[in-house]
Structures are given as C-alpha cells and as structure tokens.
C-alpha cells in the first residue's frame, strides 16, 4: 500500500524517472494499476456527487454508476491494447504490463485533483467558472502529457515517432471499437436467429 502511494508521488513529482523505473522487473504489480483505476473511478463519482448545483450539466437520473465505470475502463483498456499492439509491430520495447501500468498511473493527477477542484464549484458562481474550467483542463492536459511521456519512455521512441505511434494507437482504438460493435451486432443476430429457430421448431412439433 505504502509502495503504491510512493509510486503515485513519484509519477507526479518525477514522471520521467517513474516511467524508467516501471520497466524494472518486479517494480510494480498489476494490482497497483487496478487500484489506481479504481481510485480514478471513485474520484469521478465523488466529484459528480459534490458538484454544486449551478455547475451540474446532467440530471441525477442521467448518471449511472455502470456507465461512468465503462467510460473510464473501456477507453483505458482499448488504449492499452491498441498502443501495445501498434508499438509491438513498430519496434516498441514496452511489454503489455508496462503499457497498462503506465497508462493507469497516468490517471493519478486526475484521481488526486478532481475532487478538490470540484469542491470549488460549491463556492463559485457561474460567471467565475473560468477558474474551474482552467483547473479541470489543466488536470486533463497533465494526464494526456503523462500518457505521451509513457509512450515515449516505455517504448524508447524519439519525439516524431512518439506522435506517430500515438496517432496510430488512436486509429487502432477506433478500429477495435468498430469491430466490437460489429461483433456485438452480429452475435445478437445469431442469438436471435437460433432462438427464433428453436421457437419455430417448437411450434411445429
């Protein structure tokens, strides 16, 4: 536990060292990465709960625990798979575990700062919202920057290649989603077909 907090501190204070360090075998565990993802999810839900009324963009009934969870886990997971696959083809050095752990730990600034920033919405009026949006954007850019840094250091790329791999990874994410939705639809059809067939045969017995 304390090791996890130490890693969180390191990713915020010395991100470059952190991404070098995680490549050492046995330095980080899968469980620690999952812990960070869970922390980010909890932070997000807490932030939704404590948002001041004027800053709420959704009605309570529009928010679902499951949906929020999916919106954190699915993008992160597809990003990991896509980034790992793309860089494995294009001479990246990173292992799947390193990619996953690095991506998960990139969420640390979000997990830590989103709640205090959201607390601000309870003392700000709408016309002062620029402060709030600036801080939120700052945190998100921080997360994005950490992700880029991870691509660069874990796979040992130079700058241009890092940008190129990132773009390819995003394309990969879209392809994965497309195929996933396609498969979902097809399997749905197949199941319906089998069920209908069964019903029909049962009917004419």
């Amino acid at each position, binding site marked *: 536990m304390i090791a996890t907090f130490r890693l969180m501190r390191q990713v915020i204070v010395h991100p470059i060292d952190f991404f070098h360090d995680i490549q050492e075998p046995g330095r980080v565990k899968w469980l620690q990465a999952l812990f960070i993802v869970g922390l980010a999810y909890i932070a997000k839900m807490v932030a939704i709960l404590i948002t001041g009324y004027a800053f709420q963009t959704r009605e309570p009934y529009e928010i679902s625990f499951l949906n929020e969870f999916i919106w954190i886990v699915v993008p992160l997971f597809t990003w990991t798979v896509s980034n790992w696959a793309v860089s494995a083809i294009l001479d990246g050095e990173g292992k799947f575990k390193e990619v996953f752990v690095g991506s998960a730990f990139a969420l640390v600034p979000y997990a830590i700062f989103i709640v205090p920033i959201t607390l601000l919405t309870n003392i700000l*009026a*709408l016309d002062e919202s620029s402060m709030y949006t600036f801080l939120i954007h700052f945190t998100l850019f921080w997360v994005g920057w950490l992700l880029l840094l991870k691509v660069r250091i874990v796979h040992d790329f130079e700058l241009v290649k890092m940008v190129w791999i990132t773009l390819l990874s995003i394309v990969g994410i879209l392809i994965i989603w497309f195929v996933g939705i396609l498969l979902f639809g097809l399997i749905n059809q197949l199941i319906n077909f089998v069920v209908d067939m069964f019903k029909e045969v049962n009917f004419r017995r």
Partner: protein
Amino acid sequence: MKQVSKFRFVVSTAIALLMLVTALPVQTYAASPYEGYTRNKLGDDVHSINGYIYESSIDGYDLSSGPFSAPEDVFLADDGTIYIVDTGNSRIVHLNKKHELLGIIGDEEGDGKLYEPKGVFVKQDGTIYVADTKNQRIAIFDQKGKFQNQFGKPENPLLGATFSYSPSKLLVDKRNYMFVVSDGNTQGLIQIDPNGQFKGFYGANHVGFSWSRLINKLVATDEQKAKLSVVKPLEFSNAVQDEEGFIYTSTLGTEMNQLKRLSPVGVDTLNIVPRRYGGRFDNGPFSVPSFLDLAVDKDGVITALDLQSSKVYQYDKLGNFLFVFGGLGDQNGLFITPSSLAQSPDGTVFVVDKGRNRVDLFRTTPFAELVHDASRLFVDGRYKEAEGLWNEVLHLNGNFDLAYLAIGKSLFKAENYKDAMTYFELARSRYDYSIAFKEYRKEYIRENFAWICLIIVVIIIALRYILPFLWRRVRIMLSARRLAGAAHIKGGVPHDRNL
C-alpha cells in the same frame, strides 16, 4: 292493505323525488380529447391542467347565408363582431357577438365580386380590407359592405420580373399602410401605402450562415453551382399587429424562431436567444412545425396555430410556454385541417377548421385565467404582486416550472436569496440560481467574516507547521521500521532498537 299501499305510495314518491333532485343538477362534463401539458426546462412535456376547453362551433348551418365552405380566416373586430372569410363561397360573412348574421361582404356582380379571398382585416372605423387572393388584389369595402376601392398587383422594379402576386393575409397600420403576405413570396411583408403604391418589403427573414453552403461554394464548379437549388429566405405565413403597433409574424419551414415580434425597422425583438416554438415530437420524430397563424392579446400573450400537429400553442410575452390544446382528429376540440385563429378580448380562441368547414371556439379554464393574471404581472416585473398568484398556480399544478421561476425572482427581489436559490433549483434555472448564489455568498461572508478568517488562519498554520511536523514523525517511524526490517534480513535480533 290499504295502509300498506299508501305507505308504499309515499315511500316510492319520496324516492322518485329524491332521485329527481339528485339527478337534476347533473351537468355533463365531456373529457377533453386532448391532454394538457406544459414544458419543463429540459424540454420534456409534463402533464398539466388544460388551459382551453372546447366550447362550441360556428358552421353556418343555422344562418340564412348557408354553411361555410373551406373557410381560411377569421377576424374579430374591436366592436366584438366576427368576420369569417368563407373562401370556398368567395365571400366574407359578418356575424355579431351572438353569432347571428349581420351581412355578407362580396357582391354578386361587378368590381365588388370576390374570388376565393383568403384574408380580411377590419379597421377600427369598420372599413374592410379583403385579400382577394385569386383576383390578385386588395379589395376595400366600407362598414356597410359596399365596395369602395381596389389595389391590384404592385408595380416596382424591386419586385423583379418573376414576381407573382397572391395576397393571402394582410394588416393595416395606423397610417393606413397595408402589410400584405403574398403566398410564396420570400422577401418579407409587402408594404403598400394608402394610394396603392409599393413602399418596399418589411421584416424579411434572412438566410443564415451554413457550413455546407460555404464548402459547396468553395468546391463546386460553376456548372455544379447552377444545378444546386437556390437558397431562399423563409416565407411568412401570417402577420398580426398588437395594441402597441408591433407586427408579429409566423414563418414556415423552420424549427427555430417561427414566431417573431418585429420592431418598426423589421428586427426581431422576441427571440433574443434563438428559440424553438411548437413541439418537436408531436407529429412523429423531428417534425418541423409549420405555424399558419398567430394572435396576440393585449398583454402580449401569443397564441399560435401549428398545422403539422394541428395544435394551438400559447406563449407569454417573453416566449415562455404556457398552454397547448387541440390536435388532429374528429372529436370536438380537435381539428381536421386548421387554417387560422383569432382571440377575442375575453380570451376565447377562435380556430378556423378548413377541413370541417367551421370555426371552433375554445374558452379559457379558471386555471388559464390564473396563469394569465400571474404571467401578466410577472412579465411586467411586478414579481411581488405575482407571487401569491403563482403560489396558487402551484397549488393547482406543482409541475408548472414557470411558477417556480417567478416565485424565485420575487424572493430574489425581496433579498431572500437562500429561498430564491431553492426555487430556482426547482425551476431548473442554473443561471438565476448562480446569480442568487453569488448574493447569498456575499451575505454569508459578511455575516461570518470573523469565523472564516479564523478558519483560514488555522488552515495556514496547519499546513505550514503541524503537517510538516507530523510528516517528519511518520518518516522517522517508517525509516526505523525499515532499518529493523533490514536488520531482520541480515539476521540481526528482531525488534532490536539499538541496532
């Protein structure tokens, strides 16, 4: 025996009388064929009490003039008389308040003969202006219905060579200028002076910016451009004037800003923020309402008729949704093909149903009267006076969002910011909530200034001294433990602090 039968007689008579007495005051309350609803801030339809109930119809069968045929317009004059444009019979039927025939406008022969007129306007002195559509002219009759004058197709180079004149609706302002709606004309209302001279277009709709059009313009060749359909501004379907002389128009073929209040120079003053009138899902998904006619009462309440859903929508002076009634169907209170509407000073709404050759009358319910009273005060900014009325509205219908907003504004004005915030939250008005919150925050800080200062000082001390102190202690403890662990690995004595 006789005694028994007498007793029976008395009892049965008493029962019969009792039944008669209980049965007598029975009034039949026909359920309205449409459900009343209002719209909340999220754009959802919320059940509400009906504002208007079907009362009666005028179909002309009991008049000596005979039944109407495809009527297109109705005009309620200031003296309370009713002018019905009986388009299919090419005449205007003039009725009094009790719906009895006063006269027929439109001669059998000569210049006064009308040919499928579609609109009428009656000035305060009784002069009748008829949009004589198929004759392509404005015909003018005096108050007795005698033909006086006519204005044909206006001539002007501005109108262009392809201009086709088909006057369908018109209004006359205080200067006797005519504002004519011509079917299919997209350049605005045609202004004609008292001498019949064309004086220009008024209040035209504009073609807005569109990305696809910009890209087309950049990419397409000249031949392709020639094949593209020309984008024209939207067409007005009707125009009315309120007591202050503002002209209100209804526009066809758009989802936004279908109703407008035009300033004397033709600028829309109703929709400062673009607004969507009518219902988006009333007639199947994503249908575009087509407003055919509108009426404005003395308080600025706008009542507008949508052909797509055959419903009548009512908005207050600021464009807030108030009521809706009508719909498509055969029952009394629904319409087959509505074509026009008007509102009498007592609030009765006249809707012309072209498809059923009659004019339907709708009366306001007590709830609507209450809302109208409250909204009049609210629109004038007399929030305090309106508050009681709005509370009564909420008592009858807790779903009426506008009431929460209005009460919130009243409380805000009374500097009761905390309660105002509650009401603004109920009205889902984040903007107003935020403004009230700012005032509340100011007040709160002023009252608790000492405490807030104290807390800030405590936080600073905690962050500067106490936290680092605790942190040092924890680190010492941790390193001690690690040393102990290291000693353990090395094979030293466990828990030996003097290592």
